[in-house]
């Protein structure tokens, strides 16, 4: 088991290396002089020279890359230009908020998407099925940030049921914390709910046609327990993958949702970095998110092996 985990981690290493290389190269895409762009119009030559120095633009790309890896090895992602402080510090401060939001959205996704998919498969080709599929299709088509704005108008302004934005830390006011996560959580989760419901339904339909399901039914087991025990377990394997992917999408979706709801999380930090052309912060955020996702994929692989005994540890 440990060997399996280690081997998966080792296999992820080249991808991680490439990921860091891509993150490091983002600034090379900037046409012209990044320092002048960051400083903005009307900046003095000295200011521009300072920023150039700060970004290491005086050195060659290879030297800068070497410096980036050297710092990375020490857990240093450079300094944010806008905030004038270490990128890692800025992100670490905001990360818990984003994790809370993404976690809440993931909870919603699983709590709504999974049952919807199962019910749709059980009642395939009835109006219930149609309703779930329509809902899923709408979830995939509606832009989530726009939905967020519309929910602010409806629930935050017109009905005044929930806060229209902002964030209350859990330690200050647990109830307020939940209240201000509800709307952004729903906006963020909608797309994933649609995806998860569709995948669950498709997998469930396949599983329900299997011989062992028929056998269980023939034994006289109630349909509910056949679906709940025999079928659901087999549905879980692809579903875990989707949940793993979902978490990544939720993390990146937070960039725009946190902007809409003025939530001080990592997403809003990165959105502001984009506005302010704060390249070190963009690069750091990109690298961290991708690294988390690569490791999450490894975790999903390991989880497969735990959930599904047919997945062998010792072969790839």
């Amino acid at each position, binding site marked *: 088991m440990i060997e399996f985990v280690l081997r998966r981690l080792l296999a992820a290493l*080249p*991808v991680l290396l*490439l*990921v860091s*290389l*891509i993150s490091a190269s*983002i*600034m090379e*895409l*900037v*046409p012209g002089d990044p320092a002048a762009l960051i400083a903005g119009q009307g900046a003095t030559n000295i200011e521009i020279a300072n920023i150039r120095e700060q970004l290491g633009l005086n050195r060659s790309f290879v030297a800068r890359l070497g410096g980036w890896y050297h710092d990375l090895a020490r857990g240093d992602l450079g300094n944010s230009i806008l905030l004038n402080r270490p990128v890692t510090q800025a992100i670490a401060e905001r990360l818990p908020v984003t994790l809370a939001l993404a976690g809440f959205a993931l909870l919603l996704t699983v709590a709504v998407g999974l049952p919807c998919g199962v019910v749709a498969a059980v009642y*395939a*080709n009835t109006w219930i*099925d149609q309703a779930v599929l329509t809902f899923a*299709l*709408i979830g*995939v*088509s*509606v*832009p989530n*940030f*726009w*939905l967020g*704005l*519309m929910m*602010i*108008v409806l629930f935050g*302004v017109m009905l005044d049921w929930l806060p229209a934005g902002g964030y209350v830390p859990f330690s200050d006011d647990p109830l307020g914390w939940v209240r201000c996560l509800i709307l952004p959580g729903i906006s963020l989760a909608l797309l994933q709910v649609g995806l998860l419901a*569709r995948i669950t*339904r*498709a997998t469930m*339909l*396949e599983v329900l046609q299997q011989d062992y399901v028929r056998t269980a039914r023939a034994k006289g087991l109630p349909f509910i327990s056949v679906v709940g025990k025999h079928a659901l377990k087999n549905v879980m394997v692809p579903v875990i993958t989707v949940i793993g992917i979902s978490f*990544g*999408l939720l*993390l*990146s*979706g937070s*960039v*725009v949702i946190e*902007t*809409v709801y003025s939530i001080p999380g990592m997403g809003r930090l*990165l*959105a502001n970095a*984009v*506005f302010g*052309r704060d*390249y070190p912060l*963009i*690069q750091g*955020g*990109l690298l961290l*998110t*991708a690294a988390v*996702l*690569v490791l999450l994929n490894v975790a999903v692989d390991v989880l497969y092996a735990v959930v599904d005994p047919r997945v062998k540890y010792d072969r790839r």
Partner: protein
Amino acid sequence: MTGAEAAAVAGEEAPGALDKPVSLWRRLRRHRLCMTGAVIFGCVLLLALFADLLQVLPPEKMQVRLRFKTPDFPYPLGTDNYGRDIWSRLVHGARLSLSIGFAVALVTGITGTLIGVAAGYFKRLDSPLMRSMDALMAFPAILLAIAIAAALGPSASNAVIALSVVYTPRTARIVRSTVLVVREMDYVQAARACGGVDLWIIWRHVLPNCMAPLLVQLTFIFAYAILAEAVLSFLGVGPPPPAPTWGSMIAEGKDYLREAPHICLIPGMAVALVCLGINLLGDGLRDVLDPRLRVQIG
């Protein structure tokens, strides 16, 4: 003899060959949801094509005295915070959104096919190409697109570049998996045994048999790209103002949600409608072209 016919002669089923257009159309026409999607998409396409004729005012024309008008004559969808006619901006935005979506699908289709075929057909290239694709796919799509667009600078063509970089690996992966199957088919082996040049075999036998999954994938990428472009414009890294993109219209409306929610409401509904149409179309195409996946729709 096309690849599909060669396959038929060889008694094998090609995994992803396209049917003749006529029979394809006949089957698509019976797919009610697909036709609904086609009609929605067709309507928006017409709006985009005839935007210049349909506009009430030029989309960038500001009228300070006529700000925040609710939908009424002569401005069917009202005016925005600069007194610009929302309807005119909407139809021109359709042109912009559809062009960007189409460009992304086209570029992605070409680069994804090149990479996918190279990786799938030439074993030596497989590992380096696909590991690079894996690395690109490790980034959340939207986040990478935002970062690239932010680095390149806000413009329509840079949005296309950013989104194409993001969606190419996904396309390449699908093409590669089809090529891996096709290249083992007897008719490809036969062509090779006859001394066929690799590039000729790819063009004549491999590519035609990869078209179906590619087409389905590109339809969905079209929809994703329109959604993602709205996000980029919303965050200010899409085409710069005063370009009438749907995303930037939503962004401008968000400061006036209380007073004039229609500024925000209308372009968002347009995005949702177009994506719904394209997704329906894509689902239908998948049902018809890719029977292995039919279960997913039912």
